């Protein structure tokens, strides 16, 4: 399956245009008919998911879908969908659909709902475009189209805290996009093209090439929450409404890592990177990201802040995987995109239920909460086990592959970083699960007279959580691990084996 062939297809264009048009339609419809808008948004996200899935037959045959539209200067817009783009686009469309479903109940009676839905769908267009882009300019445009509207989701509560977080997010995003812009133009200057899918456009090492590489590292590092550029993330993700946090932490920050992956293997190329050793910059930063993100997460007692720092730590694993540059590391890396996206969005959705139903954010007050919200907390536990890397869930597979990749790359020391990540994950996730189910003293204090009543969330909120929790386990347990197979193919494609 090492050889690929191109298939002209309008599917990627339609998949991106649908939410783009849908967002505008949702806003206009929502001015009059709120209910219609809600279901329209669900339909649009479900439609995007269906369109992504419709690409599968071609992808499975080893094809690469390409589409090109000469509308935008200077280079026109193009889409190019290979296995990697397909996998991530499908996963993100699925998570978007579930988050929209979840929002139906979660956002009922909130202010600014119309704006919220329109921007939720708009950011889907941005992230789908990012994953399906066929050249850097398209990637850049959709990257912006996702990042800037996301500020509206961050600011949704309109509290002072939210405004401050959103401004911080906005300025760092713009700063990042300037670095991206510089590096993109420099790439164009080197190669006269910014097309993705090659074996490397930047011919040889030079100071400018190094600056270009660093520009990309900064640009995508900001989005991916790489230490020390992560400062916006722990502020911005917790203040957003929970379904939006799930998307921000689950999918949108992955676009940063995704961009880095594409840039490293398709703009710079494996040979150049091996020869110059530039990825060691990323190696060092990713280890710092893993350790710092996880260690700070231990000190956070606000549930959503802890989850946000945990995202930083997980992004460290992903960045580490891509800079190891071995096949198994890449397989684990791509699989970890999937595993973390599913698990982290599940966790954020659970957090939303907990906050909505109990009004608590501080995890020290979570004693006995598992008895009131059994299904939610069970899903929370599954997702948490996934991120810790307990077998047989997804996280175990990806961390195993990543560690094996570290050995393949001749750098076994980095497996220790992954191990540390797992241990720290255990330190900050497991106590939540344990107190939720086994703390017998707390519920009496919390609910009075030891009364334990069941207060599980509305089915449309619960269903997405359950589906995501199943997603953490089903593939790992079944004999045919579909995402893992796709990840292997994607890794081989990136390495051109």
């Amino acid at each position, binding site marked *: 399956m090492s050889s690929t062939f191109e298939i002209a297809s309008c599917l990627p264009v339609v998949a991106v245009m649908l939410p783009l048009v849908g967002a505008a339609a949702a806003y206009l419809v929502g001015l009059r008919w709120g209910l219609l808008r809600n279901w329209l948004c669900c339909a649009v996200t479900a439609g995007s998911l269906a369109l992504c899935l419709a690409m599968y037959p071609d992808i499975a045959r080893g094809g690469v879908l390409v589409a090109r539209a000469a509308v935008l*200067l*200077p280079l026109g817009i193009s889409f190019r969908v290979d296995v990697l783009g397909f996998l991530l686009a499908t996963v993100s469309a699925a998570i978007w659909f579930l988050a929209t479903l979840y929002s139906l109940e979660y956002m009922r009676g909130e202010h600014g709902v119309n704006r919220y839905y329109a921007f939720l769908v708009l950011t889907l267009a941005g992230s789908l475009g990012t994953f399906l882009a066929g050249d850097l300019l398209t990637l850049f445009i959709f990257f912006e189209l996702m990042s800037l509207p996301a500020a509206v989701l961050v*600011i949704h509560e309109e509290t002072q805290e939210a405004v401050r977080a959103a401004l911080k997010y*906005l*300025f760092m995003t*713009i700063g990042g996009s300037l670095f991206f812009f510089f590096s993109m133009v*420099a790439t164009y200057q080197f190669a006269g093209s910014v097309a993705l899918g090659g074996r490397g456009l930047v011919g040889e090492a030079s100071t400018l090439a190094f600056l270009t590489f660093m520009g990309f590292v900064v640009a995508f590092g900001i989005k991916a929450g790489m230490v020390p550029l992560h400062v916006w993330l722990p502020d911005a993700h917790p203040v957003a409404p929970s379904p939006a946090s799930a998307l921000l932490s689950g999918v949108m920050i992955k676009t940063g890592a995704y961009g880095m992956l594409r840039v490293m293997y398709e703009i710079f190329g494996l040979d150049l990177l091996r020869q110059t050793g530039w990825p060691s910059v990323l190696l060092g930063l990713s280890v710092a990201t893993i350790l710092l993100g996880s260690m700070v997460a231990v000190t956070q007692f606000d549930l959503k802040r802890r989850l946000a720092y945990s995202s930083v730590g997980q992004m460290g694993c992903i960045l580490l995987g891509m800079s190891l540059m071995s096949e198994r590391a890449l397989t684990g890396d791509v699989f970890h995109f999937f595993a973390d996206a599913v698990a982290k969005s599940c966790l954020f959705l659970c957090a939303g239920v907990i906050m909505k139903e109990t009004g608590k954010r501080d995890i020290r007050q979570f004693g006995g909460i598992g008895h009131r919200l059994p299904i939610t907390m069970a899903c929370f536990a599954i997702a948490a086990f996934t991120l810790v890397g307990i077998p047989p869930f997804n996280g175990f597979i990806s961390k195993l592959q990543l560690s094996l990749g570290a050995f393949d790359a001749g750098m076994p020391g980095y497996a220790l970083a992954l191990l540390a990540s797992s241990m720290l994950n255990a330190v900050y996730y497991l106590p939540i699960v344990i107190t939720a189910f086994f703390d017998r003293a707390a519920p009496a204090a919390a609910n009075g007279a030891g009364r334990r009543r069941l207060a599980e969330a509305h089915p449309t909120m619960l269903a997405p959580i359950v589906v995501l929790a199943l997603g953490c386990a089903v593939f790992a347990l079944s004999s045919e691990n579909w995402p893992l197979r796709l990840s292997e193919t994607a890794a081989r494609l990136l390495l051109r084996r």
Partner: protein
Amino acid sequence: MRHLPILLTVVPLTGAFLVPVLGRRPDRAYRLALLSVLLVLACAAGLLAMTGSGQTLQYYVGDWPPPWGIEVRVDALGAMLATFFAFVYLMVVLYAGSSVRAELGPAAQFWYWSLLLLLLAGINGVLTARDLFNLFVFTEIASLSACAIISVRDRLDSMEAALKYLILSAVAGGCILLGVALLYMVTGQLHLDHLGAALPAAAGSYPRVLLAALALLVSGFALKSALFPLHVWLPDAHSSAPSPSSAILSGLVVKLGIVALVRLFFVVFDWRRLVTLPLPTMVMAMGALGIVLGALFAMGQRDLKRMLAYSTVVQVGYIYFGLALLDEIALTGALMHVVNHALLKSMLFLCVGLIISRTGERSTAAMAGLARSMPLTVASFTVGAAAMVGIPLTNGFVSKWYMVLGTLNSGRPAMVAVILVSSLLSALYYFPLVVSAYFGRPASPQAEGPEGPPAMVWPVVGLAAVCLVLGIWPELPLRLLGGVARVMLGL
């Protein structure tokens, strides 16, 4: 059809004289002005269609060929700028039709329309002039009428701003005229092409005179276009005029000096010769300083119009920076930015005018929470802010792309930092306003009702729409300007 090039100047000039004669009643004056601007737009669009294929139109006034007569020439650059400028003018006139009634007394109104048309004549004259002296005369017409427009409001700060502008533009005018005289002395020519042809010989005999002439002309036109550090008059002048006039002053009038210098650099003084002087480096340095310091000043402003005026200093620096790179791609980007900034800044000034007339406040705090009561205005402002920062799908992105590419192409990767810093700084002073407009709490309860007269709102929306369209389909202007850049650089 043959007379189109001269009609570009003659129509508004005639209008300017007819308004005081026929249009004593304000609404009749307005209709006359509107008609003139529409005619100019039609002429300019016709010229653009004719020059679109790359040819230039020459017109000899009174059928006297150049060494004796005056030549008016419309090339692709002139036609395109004239078209976009006339479009901006049309939007501003539509807007001013309502706003001037509120801002000026009935007696001052027809003077206002007359001056506006006179200014348009000056602008088009500069765009089409082919000899140095006419360039000077039309620059002076434009400057004088611009001053008069500022002082048309009978208020102390307007008078002062006008006086400051007038004195500095008299200095600039004197410098330019002396420069023209020096050039004429050593070459005996005034026509730009003939001057260009005669200069190499003159450069041998009178190198220092030429240098002095160049210095005088550059400082004169740079003063008129507010290149840092010669920008001191601009914030006062642009912020104290009525809003529609600020739109024209900031959007169009500062561009005249730039256009004149473009003609000088690339037609008269051979740019290959300029490279041997430190001039391009100096202009680049001033542009860069203007970008950074202008942005810092803009950040410190609490007055919306002053902030926009400082932003103009930044953008002028940006354009000069692109010109001084002397690179085909950067030049295309800089010329594109002349168009983009004309559209953007006039749109932003009109937005602010709406906000001021609605809230009665000029401070940046007036923006808080406005999005609910003025959705279209704030949306247009957002488009403008995004384009100033250079976000994709806006026209600002297109010029930024070309500028950065040109900077790299000319082998100065470090200079890219200037452009990127400029974008970041623009974000720092525009985006907090946008965020507070959407999410801030209004300081005082807002008035109910529509956001303004439709005749004031729709021009703003129209300008914003053109900015977006140019961001998505910039092929036509880019193709034309790319051709212009190649011709100018002799490639």
